[in-house]
């Protein structure tokens, strides 16, 4: 039986989150084998441009809802609206990025629809005509292969930076279906009273390069060379829990089991031993570099390049070399 796919396009202030196009790429990967059409849904205030982009990214049909109450994602209005859209799209595979919003929305709508959910997947394939999702469990120490029962909707979120979107195709055409908001502002139980964006700094979960410091940096000032290398590479600054717990750097930078899971192209760990809980958050980085004064730490089992030496002499030298070579 063919299954249609529906991708929720996450947006903020009329700008799609890049993870949405990754979810679209995941949908494209299985759409052929599932044999159905590819539909997108985007809710916001002024999302016409994103609807157009969704068609260029591969959607045959896009549901759009434009309403001031949808400008900023909130779970209740988006969930009710998505559940309503899904009434018109029987037995669909519903895909979204495993962002904070996507994890929440997929779970909420799956509950409303009484459907199965495979969150934070790292791979998808089709066996026979059945969708199979692969997801890490027990902080990366197990891999689960998930299949769905029944013939209703199936919900999947995909981990950031795994699926690579193809280039948009400006010649594609598709249908745009406008739907009204499902809840009025008065019916929405939450109000967003302020939003503080982390200006200027690169967000950890989206960064393609991360430079992290651990207990080895020795104190808050020890993060200076680490941050300088991150800046030279245009990357984000990460940390181990040991450094966060010591109060040297805010929790928002923590990578690992109780911090963020990241999947950058390049992860440079400075003075981090590579405890299982830290590895859980970063071991799937494409290239891992470990800089540690110890010649034998657990991280070396996962790293592609290692420098056994004092981070305070090697990290600044690497930053200098990067500036020289990349002209930054």
């Amino acid at each position, binding site marked *: 039986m063919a299954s249609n796919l529906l991708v929720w396009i996450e947006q903020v202030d009329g700008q799609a989150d890049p993870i949405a196009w990754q979810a679209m790429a995941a949908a494209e990967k299985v759409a052929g084998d599932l044999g159905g059409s590819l539909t997108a849904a985007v809710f916001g205030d002024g999302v016409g441009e994103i609807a157009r982009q969704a068609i260029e990214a591969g959607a045959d049909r896009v549901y759009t809802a434009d309403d001031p109450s949808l400008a900023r994602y909130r*779970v*209740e209005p988006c969930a009710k609206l998505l559940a309503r859209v899904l009434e018109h799209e029987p037995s669909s595979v519903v895909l979204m990025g495993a*962002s*904070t*919003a996507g994890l*929440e929305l*997929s*779970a909420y709508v*799956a*509950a409303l629809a009484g*459907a*199965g*959910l*495979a*969150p*934070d997947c790292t791979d998808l394939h089709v066996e026979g005509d059945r969708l199979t999702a692969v997801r*890490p*469990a*027990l*902080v*990366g*120490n*197990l*891999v*689960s*292969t998930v*299949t*769905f029962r029944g013939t209703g909707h199936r919900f999947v979120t995909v981990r950031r930076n795994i699926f690579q979107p193809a280039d948009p195709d400006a010649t594609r055409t598709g249908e745009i279906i406008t739907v009204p908001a499902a809840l009025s502002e008065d019916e929405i139980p*939450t*109000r*967003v*009273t*302020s939003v*503080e*964006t*982390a200006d200027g700094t690169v*967000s950890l979960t989206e960064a393609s390069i991360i430079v992290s410091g651990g207990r080895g940096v020795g104190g808050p000032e020890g993060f200076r060379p680490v941050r300088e290398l991150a800046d030279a590479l245009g990357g984000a600054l990460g940390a181990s829990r040991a450094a966060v717990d010591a109060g040297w750097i805010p929790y*928002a930078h*923590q990578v690992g*089991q*109780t*911090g963020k899971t990241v999947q950058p192209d*390049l992860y440079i760990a400075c003075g981090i031993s590579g405890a*299982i*809980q830290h590895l859980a958050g970063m071991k799937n980085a494409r*290239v891992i570099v470990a800089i540690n004064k110890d010649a034998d730490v657990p991280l*070396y089992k996962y*790293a*592609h*390049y*290692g*420098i056994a*030496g004092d981070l305070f002499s*090697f990290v600044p*030298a*690497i930053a*200098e*070399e*990067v500036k020289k070579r*990349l002209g930054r």
Partner: protein
Amino acid sequence: MNIIALVKQTPDTAQLSAAMDGLMLSADGGPRIVNPWDEYTLETALQAREEHGGKVTALCLGPPEAADALKTALAMGVDEAVLVSDPAMADSDSLASARILVAAIRKIGDFDLIVGGRAAIDGNTAATAVQVAALLGIPLVSYVAKLRNLDPSDRTVTAVRLLEKARETVTSRLPALITVVKEINEPRYPSLIGIRKAARADIPVWGCEDLGLDPSGVGAGASGVVWRTELPPVREAHIEMIDGGPEDAARTLVDRLMEEKVI
């Protein structure tokens, strides 16, 4: 304030070692702890009670051994604990679990606030608490890093949510369900008196019958997903150690990173 804290018991990943892999750790009888994220759940619930009075009930769905997680909760200071356990409930997915938890919450009765964790470290679905809110039809405020104002008389809660790219302040009506992240607090250690009290506590265990649930409506058979779990593929050590002084090593490393096209 009546507060319900959703607490899961999970394998103790600190016990992972060369001799104890993920499958062995997860097997029946393996070492167990309170889901690390739910330590923040408990601390949040306890602080709310300390500020506003009332009582905290810790609620856990799991096998009989999960009573240990509730003993920890009691030792930390919760007033009551309820274990939901029934062989028919084994292998429930997140939604089947949420349905069971909702039945237990209804049996507990009145509540102003439900607190859950961001995720449980075993299945890492980050879904169960969200689905409890959806099924109860109460407001959900997830990823809470700070409770600004919890006002039982005004029936509102104002919280700061930690999102990937922003910190968002949200006000919601009560009763509500919040999920918390690590930044919110520093969980307390169980006190000695608490540990002694918890050891003596008789924790009620509710099964399908107590909750008025049909056994065919819970467990693997009532779940939307089926999963098979394996060890991840073994990774070969393939590290290239870069020798030399800082300048030489920096040059070699940057060469390699450019060849790998990551910079």
